[in-house]
């Protein structure tokens, strides 16, 4: 009973959220309408049944009648439900048509599902697309219960999708490997991300805020660990954010031309490893879904082979092509890190220039 007493309405949401968008509110109303119709029918039907259970029991000496059909009643309970269904179909149809109205979007975002992270790419007419990956940031220590879980446990990412408020944003949704599904309950948007095909969805968010969701199509071992986080900001703030992203991208490409120190590479490599590699290869490089990194003959062997596997992936396995996900600096850093961490100690230093040469060659 103490368990039940600890329940509070705030902690334990029992119903769908109406969300923040117009469509979300429409869907919520539709959901409530159908639910109440079902409740009314259910109460009526079960009232009849329970009355019969109470009044027509043998132990009360009730004698059984022998009637077993009535054409009038049977026609009535076929026709009336049919009419109720038509009444439900009308609002359902109009809401569905609204959901499918993808025209006249002011901003297009390409969303690509990867095992197990989302990639967001802002499509720009000038061709200067902003693109980045959005990884889970909940530490392994919280997942494996050695540290207290934070407020947004499993629903927090390093880089959220940022969209402007009061703007019709169109999402073009696809996937790189298996089928994923992009869902944000408060925006009432859920679309499957299907490799080789592009689906459309849209939203117009009226108020600023942070909206959280998850992948909703089983996509492999870490399906439960690829959240969606959307920041809705004012259009001005959005412009500023875009400019900052473009500036940062330029700085990155400058950095790729430089020679970095071993310490810099190791430090950045550790960060990259812990977002991109750790899920499959383990926090200590011990392996898991993927092979072990510690003591691996690939990692400690020929650099070009190691680089090729990290950059291009291994077909038919969960090992992805990371050249699409990491820039040259990050690739160089993570290669350096893998070749020197976990007791591998090869002493090899990989510079961004080496990776660039590799990818072009």
């Amino acid at each position, binding site marked *: 009973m103490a368990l039940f007493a600890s329940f509070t309405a705030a902690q334990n949401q029992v119903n769908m959220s109406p969300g923040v968008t117009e469509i979300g509110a429409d869907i919520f109303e539709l959901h409530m309408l159908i639910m109440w119709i079902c409740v009314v029918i259910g109460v009526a039907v079960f009232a009849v049944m329970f009355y019969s259970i109470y009044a027509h029991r043998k132990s009360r000496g009730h004698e059984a009648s022998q009637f077993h059909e009535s054409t009038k009643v049977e026609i009535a309970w076929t026709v009336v439900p049919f009419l109720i269904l038509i009444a439900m179909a009308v609002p359902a149809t109009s809401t569905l048509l609204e959901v499918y109205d993808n025209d006249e979007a002011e901003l297009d975002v390409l969303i690509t599902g990867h095992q197990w992270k989302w990639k967001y790419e802002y499509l720009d007419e000038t061709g200067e697309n902003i693109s980045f990956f959005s990884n889970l940031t909940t530490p392994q220590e919280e997942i494996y219960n050695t540290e207290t879980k934070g407020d947004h446990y499993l629903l927090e990412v390093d880089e959220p999708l940022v969209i402007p408020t009061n703007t019709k944003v169109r999402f073009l949704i696809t996937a790189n490997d298996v089928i994923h599904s992009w869902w944000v309950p408060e925006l009432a948007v859920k679309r499957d991300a299907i490799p*080789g095909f592009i689906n459309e969805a849209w939203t117009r968010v009226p108020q600023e805020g942070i909206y959280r969701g998850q992948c909703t199509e089983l996509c492999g071992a870490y*399906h439960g660990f690829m959240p969606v986080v959307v920041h809705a900001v004012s259009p001005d703030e959005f412009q500023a954010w875009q400019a900052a992203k473009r500036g940062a991208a330029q700085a990155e490409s400058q950095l790729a031309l430089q020679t970095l120190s071993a310490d810099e590479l190791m430090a950045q490599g550790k960060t990259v490893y812990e977002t991109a590699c750790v899920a499959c290869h383990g926090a200590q490089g011990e392996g*898991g879904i993927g092979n072990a990194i510690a003591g691996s003959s690939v990692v400690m062997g020929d650099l070009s082979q190691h680089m090729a596997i990290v950059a291009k992936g291994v077909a038919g396995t969960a090992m992805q092509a990371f050249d699409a996900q990491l820039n040259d600096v990050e690739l160089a850093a993570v290669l350096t890190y893998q070749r020197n961490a976990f007791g591998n100690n090869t002493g090899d230093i990989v510079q961004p220039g080496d990776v660039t040469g590799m990818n072009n060659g």
Partner: protein
Amino acid sequence: MGDHHHGPATGVTRWLFTTNHKDIGTMYLWFSFAMFLLGGFFAMVIRAELFQPGMQLVEPAFFNQMTTLHGLVMVFGAIMPSFVGLANWLIPMMIGAPDMALPRMNNWSFWILPPAFLMLASTLFMEGGAPAFGWTFYAPLSTTYAPPSVTFFIFAIHILGVSSIMGSINIIATVMNMRAPGMTYMKMPMFVWTWLITAFLLVAVMPVLAGAVTMMLMDIHFGTSFFSAAGGGDPVLFQHIFWFFGHPEVYIIILPAFGVVSQIIPAFSRKPLFGYASMVYATASIAFLSFVVWAHHMYTVGMPVAGELFFMYATMLIAVPTGVKVFNWISTMWRGSLSFETPMLFSIGFLVLFTLGGFTGLMLSIAPADFQYHDTYFVVAHFHYVMVAGAVFSMTAAVYYWLPKWCGRMYSESMGKIHFWISFIGFNITFFPQHFVGLAGMPRRIPDYALQFADFNMMSSIGAFIYGASQLLFLYNVIATIVSGERVSDEKVWDGAEGLEWTVPTPAPYHTFEEPPLVSKPAGTF
């Protein structure tokens, strides 16, 4: 067979070589109960891991193997064979036939099942682990990205399909050819009707499933690209094929359950089934509609809006015949003379909880609302209300109802009632809160979840342990009945029971109706 004798053979050969419908029915029933316990064990692992947020007992990859095997074992190993077992025992006795029409095939369709499930279970011990792509095995997770054990999974599915098709052909042949004189179609008991329609569904869709897994096999091993866009295929094609099988499949599971409660409710209401003819037509309508609603499982794949509308309207229509059935059952009870033995309790439990599952099914049919429900725990709650409280409750009712006829001994009524109440309460504690977490946004098939779902998940796990434990009580009650239950010898074990199976001696002898009975009364009249 040189000597002509009527008793069963002795020893293990009785079971290996038997062509007797009662022996085969018994084997199906025990096999399915063993699978029910195995699938239930997998469910307990799932609920134990979900007891609290964070990873405690198993790794995410193994968790996915558990959800996959739980679904496959329950659908193909527990529920389907249990109803085939019931059909074997009852259909010949209900239509006045001496046995099934194709007894040797009957033996074969049972005996290929255990090896198939042995193979499926053995994948747990293979390198890369068991299939981990969900019981719906969507490509390309089940093809390009599958563990090597997927090939064994495909072979197991093929064998199950062969078994089901043979079983169905047998039922169709039996019902069409072996009815006793005077047993016209419209005099057949509802259970026979629902199984006849189910058998046609099975023959129609099991080959489609076989086609789907064969295409997977080709994609995995022979370089085809049915389900890979890179080679000109389409991953969504897999879903269309799977659900063209999968939706009729859920009716394959539920229609015999409808048949069972249509036998039991009249018996304990001491009143004929209300609207027999409309029950037959409603069953046939549901079966027909089941072929044109498959894509309601796929509202989020990005179908054209016209497709969404078609599948939404067609799906909503199913509510009409399903409603007719519920109204008929309640009208059967109305002004009857009701008593509440264990089979009746489970049937009423079925009626209430299945109707709840029907309501959530109607909600799920509404395409725009489904965008919020799809692949959440709301769906998990929905299909467990129709599969567990629907199929499993009705199967349990059937065992309590016919067990005295099968073994000539009465089960313990008080233990049966305790089993019902623990099951009923445990079931609802498990699955009712799942509606809430689903609506609040918890996706299905995740091994770990955000903190706001914690309380309801803990409740759900506690309920699952209660429900799981109650099945051991059921097992005990059945064994105790067979070994040392009080003997019954009345042909009609239940005073309100109607039908030919209650005209043979109790316990039912090894061979019944070697001489066909003459049927004059319509089914279900007194």
